[in-house]
């Protein structure tokens, strides 16, 4: 292979290889600090308890106490 032919090949392929790098796109998505990205949820007492957290807390506390049968009869 003559030296002229090699030079011509380098002159043709060189810029293509160099420009090939320009097509690279960053592969790393930005760091989001792990924040929740889904739909926003409403608070549990907003719908059924007229937005009254105290009322809801009392209802739940009553149910929790109901799980303790020792309140009804001590063994």
């Amino acid at each position: 292979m003559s030296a002229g032919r090699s030079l011509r090949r380098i002159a043709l392929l060189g810029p293509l290889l160099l420009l090939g790098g320009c097509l690279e796109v960053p592969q790393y998505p930005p760091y989001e600090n792990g924040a929740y990205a889904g739909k926003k949820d409403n608070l549990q007492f907003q719908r059924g308890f007229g937005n009254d957290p105290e009322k809801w807390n009392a209802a739940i506390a009553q149910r929790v106490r109901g799980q303790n049968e020792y309140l009804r009869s001590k063994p």
Partner: protein
Amino acid sequence: MSARMKFICDTERCIDCNGCVTACKNENETPWGVNRRRVVTINDGSPGELSVSMACMHCTDAPCLAVCPTNCIYHTADGIVLHDKDQCIGCGYCSVACPFGAPQFPETGLFAHRGKMDKCTFCAGGPEEDMSEAEFKKYGRNRIAEGKLPACAEQCATKALLGGDANAIGAIYKERVDTRGYGPELWGWEIAYERKPK
């Protein structure tokens, strides 16, 4: 201060009746193959066998929440771990990260297609309008918004499974241990708490 909702299963009381599993399926109408709750029996058939009812433990530092690539899992104000099914891509990372095997996938098909993740919601629905049909279809019933506790805990015949504010159910459990005079004869208990001889 808002409650931090947790489950406790008293292994000395659990009789492996699977009532909690049935109640969960009935309440949330989960599809065939999806068991948000199940009962695990250790040393089945041997003297001293113990059963424990397992589901999502609603971890305070939840590993599923940490690994989710789409950030679709979140904590409610009451410490319940819920997720947005519209955001879920069914990758299964949460299933690998969860130490309790809580995440369930409804489908098995070609190309490892699993469908959206499904798990115990503490009967608290999900990020849809509370007590709406859309919420029920995606996540099951929202008993918490109705001022009730999860169906599994409330129907437990022996009251082995307790659900509710961590401090309150912890106090109920402590009273039981004080009354019967011994703690849980649980696997790993000695490894974790046995005092080493000086």
